[in-house]
C-alpha cells in the first residue's frame, strides 16, 4: 500500500472517521511502522494547536427582511398610468403620421385605426359587426386626447399657481420685521424633526410587531427568524 494511502487513513483516524476494517488495517500497520506512528503523533499535535485557534463567534446579529416598497399613492399611479398610455397612443399616432406617406399614405393601419369616427357613429349602442368581427367605436380622438392632457396639466398648474400665490401674498403682506425670526425658524424645524422621529418610531414598532409575530408563528424563540433586509437591495423580488 502506498504512503499516500496511509496518510489519508491517518487523517481519517485523527478525526475518528475511519471505518472498522480500515481501522484494523491501520492499527496493524502502525504496530510495524515507526514513521507512520510519528506522523500520527505530529498530526495530533497540529490538530491540538489548531483547536486552540477556534474563533469564538460573536452574537448573531438580527437580520430583518422587508418587502419591496410599494406604490403608496394610488392617484400618482393613476396619473403615471394615464400619461404613459397617452404617450404610447401619441407615439403610435406620431409613428403612423411619420410612416404613413412612406407606407402608402392613408392606407397605414396605425393611422387609420386612431382616426376619430364621425359623430353619428357614436349613436350606435352595440358595436358594429363586419364579417363576424365586432368593430370598436370607442377610440379617443387625437383632439380629445390633447384636450384631456391639457385639462389635466391645467388643473395641476392651477393648484401649483394657487399655492405659490398664497405664499407670495403672505410674504408680500408682511413687513420685513414680521418675517420668521431665527428662533421661530428653529422651532419650526424642531417640530419637523419631531414629526420625522415619530414616523421613524412608528416604523420601528411595525418592524418589532412583525418580528414578534414571526417568532410566535415559528414557535422557536432560539431560532427566531431574523428577517432579511431586502429594502435596500435593488433588484430583489421576493415574489
Amino acid at each position, binding site marked *: 500500500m502506498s504512503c*499516500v494511502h496511509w*496518510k*489519508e487513513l*491517518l*487523517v*481519517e483516524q485523527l*478525526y475518528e*472517521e475511519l471505518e472498522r476494517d480500515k481501522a484494523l488495517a491501520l492499527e496493524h500497520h502502525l504496530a510495524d511502522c515507526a514513521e507512520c506512528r510519528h506522523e500520527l503523533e*505530529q*498530526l495530533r*499535535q*497540529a*490538530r*491540538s*494547536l*489548531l*483547536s*486552540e*485557534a*477556534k*474563533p*469564538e*463567534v*460573536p*452574537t*448573531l*446579529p438580527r*437580520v430583518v*427582511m422587508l*418587502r419591496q416598497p410599494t406604490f403608496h399613492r394610488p392617484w400618482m399611479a393613476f396619473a403615471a398610468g394615464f400619461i404613459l398610455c397617452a404617450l404610447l397612443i401619441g407615439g403610435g399616432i406620431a409613428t403612423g403620421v411619420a410612416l404613413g406617406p412612406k407606407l402608402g399614405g392613408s392606407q397605414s393601419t396605425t393611422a387609420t385605426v386612431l382616426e376619430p369616427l364621425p359623430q353619428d357613429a357614436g349613436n350606435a349602442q352595440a358595436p358594429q359587426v363586419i364579417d363576424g368581427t365586432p368593430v370598436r367605436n370607442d377610440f379617443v380622438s387625437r383632439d380629445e386626447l390633447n384636450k384631456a392632457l391639457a385639462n389635466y396639466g391645467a388643473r395641476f398648474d392651477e393648484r401649483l399657481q394657487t399655492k405659490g400665490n398664497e405664499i407670495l401674498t403672505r410674504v408680500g403682506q408682511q413687513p420685513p420685521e414680521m418675517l420668521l425670526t431665527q428662533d421661530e425658524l428653529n422651532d419650526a424645524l424642531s417640530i419637523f424633526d419631531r414629526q420625522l422621529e415619530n414616523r421613524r418610531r412608528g416604523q420601528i414598532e411595525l418592524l418589532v410587531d412583525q418580528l414578534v409575530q*414571526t417568532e410566535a408563528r*415559528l414557535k*422557536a424563540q432560539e*431560532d*427566531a*427568524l*431574523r*428577517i*432579511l*433586509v*431586502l429594502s435596500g*437591495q435593488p*433588484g*430583489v*423580488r*421576493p*415574489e
Partner: protein
Amino acid sequence: MHGPTDEELLLAVRSGDNDSFGTLVARWERPLFHFVYRMISRPEDARDICQETFLRVLNKAHRFKPGAKFSTWMYQIALNLCRDQLRKKRRWSAVVVERNSDFEPEPAPSAVLQVEDNPAEAAERTERRQLITQALGEIPAEQREVLVMKEFEGMKFREIAEILGCPESTVKSRMYYGLNGLKAALAKQGFTAEGVS
C-alpha cells in the same frame, strides 16, 4: 427534522412562498454565520456575506438542481463569497491583529471561568491563539478552508468534498498538508505544542 425539508422549502420559495424562505433563513442563519465568521473572522463582513448568501439563494432558487442538498448549495455560495472577500481585501493576516479590537465575542461559560482564575494565563492563551491564527493565514487558502471546515465547523470529509466539488481523497490530502504546514509555520516562530520556545 420536523416539518418540511430544506429542499421542499426551497421548492416552495421558487413558487413564490415567502414564508418558506423565512423558515429557511431561521433554520440556517446561525450555522451559516458561524461558517462564514470562521472563514473570514470579521463580524461586519460575515454579516454582509450571510445576507448576500440568502439573497442569492432567493434570487437563484430556480437554479437549484433537483436531488441536490440545499445546505451544500448554500455553503458553496457562501464559500465563493468568502473567497471573493478575502481576495479583494487580502485581510486574512491582518485579521490577527484586528480581530480583538472591533468586537466583544460572546464568551463561552468555560471561557469565563478560565479568564477569572488567572489573568496571566488568559493573556498567554490569547497570545497563543493569535500566533496560531497568524500561522493559519500563512498556509495555502485551499488547505486553510479544509482545516476551518473540519476543525472549526466539524463537517465530515464527505460534506467538505461536496461543498468544494472535489474528491474526498483531495480533501484528506489538503487536511494532511494543511496540518503539517500549520505546524511548520508555527515552528518557524519558535512555537511548539508546549509553548513558545
